[in-house]
């Protein structure tokens, strides 16, 4: 898998997902793509991926993921050495 050994990258976790990270707002994950980063997150924090990514590997409608400040459209997004990943839970209604 491309860049599997890359990282670790700093990953920002939004508050709705911190029940999976023992309250941590920032964790580290390795991988050269967003898919690999999420797999690494899932290995460390079981269950977290499905809350963000559906069974068709689509990013859920009110989850935004930024890689180095740019929104990632899908899980193929590359994550270069030093890139930070920011997960945002956005605008889900009242």
């Amino acid at each position, binding site marked *: *898998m*491309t860049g599997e050994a890359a990282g670790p990258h700093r990953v920002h976790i*939004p508050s*709705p*997902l911190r*029940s*999976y990270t023992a309250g941590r707002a920032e964790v580290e994950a390795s991988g050269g*793509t*967003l*898919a*690999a980063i999420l*797999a690494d997150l899932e290995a460390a924090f*079981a*269950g977290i991926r*499905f*809350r*963000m*990514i*559906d*069974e*068709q*590997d*689509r*990013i*859920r*409608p*009110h*989850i*935004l993921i930024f*890689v180095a*400040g*740019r*929104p*990632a*459209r*899908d*899980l*193929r*997004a*590359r994550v270069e050495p030093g890139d930070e990943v920011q997960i945002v*839970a*956005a*605008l*889900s*209604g009242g």
Partner: protein
Amino acid sequence: MPKSRGKSKQRKPARQRAAPVPSSAQRGLGRAAKVVRAAAARAARASTSLFGGEGSRRVVLLVGTRKGAWILVGDAERRRFRVEGPHFLGCIVNHVVLDPRDRRTLLASAKTGHLGPTVYHSTDLGRTWAEAVRPPAFPKVAVAAGATAGDSPSETAAVEPASGAANGPDGGGASKGRAVDANFWLTPGHISQPEVWWAGTVPHGLFRSHDGGVTWDGIDGFNRNPAGVSWDAPGFFSTPDGAITHSVLIDPRDADHMYVGLSIGGLFETRDGGVHWTPLNRGVAADFLPDPTVPYGHDPHCVALHPKNPDRLYQANHCGTYRLDRPGDTWERIGRNMPKEIGDIGFPIVLHPRDPDTAWVFPMDGTTVWPRTSPGGRPAVYRTRDAGATWERQDGGLPKGQGWFTVKRQAMAADAGDPVGLYFGTTSGEIWGSADEGRTWRPILAHLPQILSIAAAEVPAAALP
């Protein structure tokens, strides 16, 4: 994962139950119903006192709301309820259900506006919860070569220019496969299958757990049925909450004999545990369809099967209230016998736990633009004691005017007491209860979030938190 926010409290000594008072429900019944009631009374006498004394059970109300779940614990008289919660504060909790096979396991379906749907289970009546390891999910659908998303990243970077736009339904990739949006309905499995649970989803899907809700698998005979998405009505209607699979009903005589309601889609039956399904909608109106005689495409709001007479089904439908006696296959519109000014449109339908002739509905205004509120702003429950031939209004204690209640399909329930206790929750966050089979109503709790579901269950008093 969220933990229960409730704290254990010292239990008060159980009070003795007051002598049961014969209800009006016990008058004017046919011979068959009297036989049923007599049998029920014998069973009640043979068991320990239901709501008081040593070894007693207490009624608990399991309340799912738009912003979390609550557990209400009734006193011996079911007049006062201790409020326990919130659980999953802020989460959309569609359903919370007790396992009647052990009376201590709870399952709860939850999601948030941001996060995908999951199922939690508790084996200690909600003191602690654990999330499913593998929640209900449809099979991954392969996408076209060159458009693969997910675990096989291509060399093509897929980083969009900064736009700030949220992802659309296909935002993460090119797959058109279905994804579970909500675990709408939970049903404990047949008594012979202790760890089995069923879940109906949005969009239409049926899933089963063999391990008490820890892992879930799709029912291919349903989810991959050749009719597939065409179970939705022509034109691909769906409700404002999506295409809802609900009313997962299991014949207590046969674990493989089940019914499932699809809104929109109709009622379907399987006799082989979910491998094959046949529609069961004859006689049900579908006046929103170009061809109202179609075999499926109907809109059952809620379907109930009587536990003591599993050949009897009742249905609250978008187009009326119905009864079906198997092996017949044609529904009778018993709602025709309700007052014309009230109509027979509603979402929940609740059955008497022992008398198959008795059912309750909560009529709503289904005229003009479908306000879905109590007709005329005067909330009332309607009861039949003769299988739908006649109905009586039950509004004692309810607002006499300016009461614009909406009660969702899962938000009304009966307990197993004698007399039966009834409960309903409104979208404005009120819970009302009746300890006398609907004759009089009292507010139990107000100021909750929008109530999506109420399940009434009985647990051993000694096991309560």
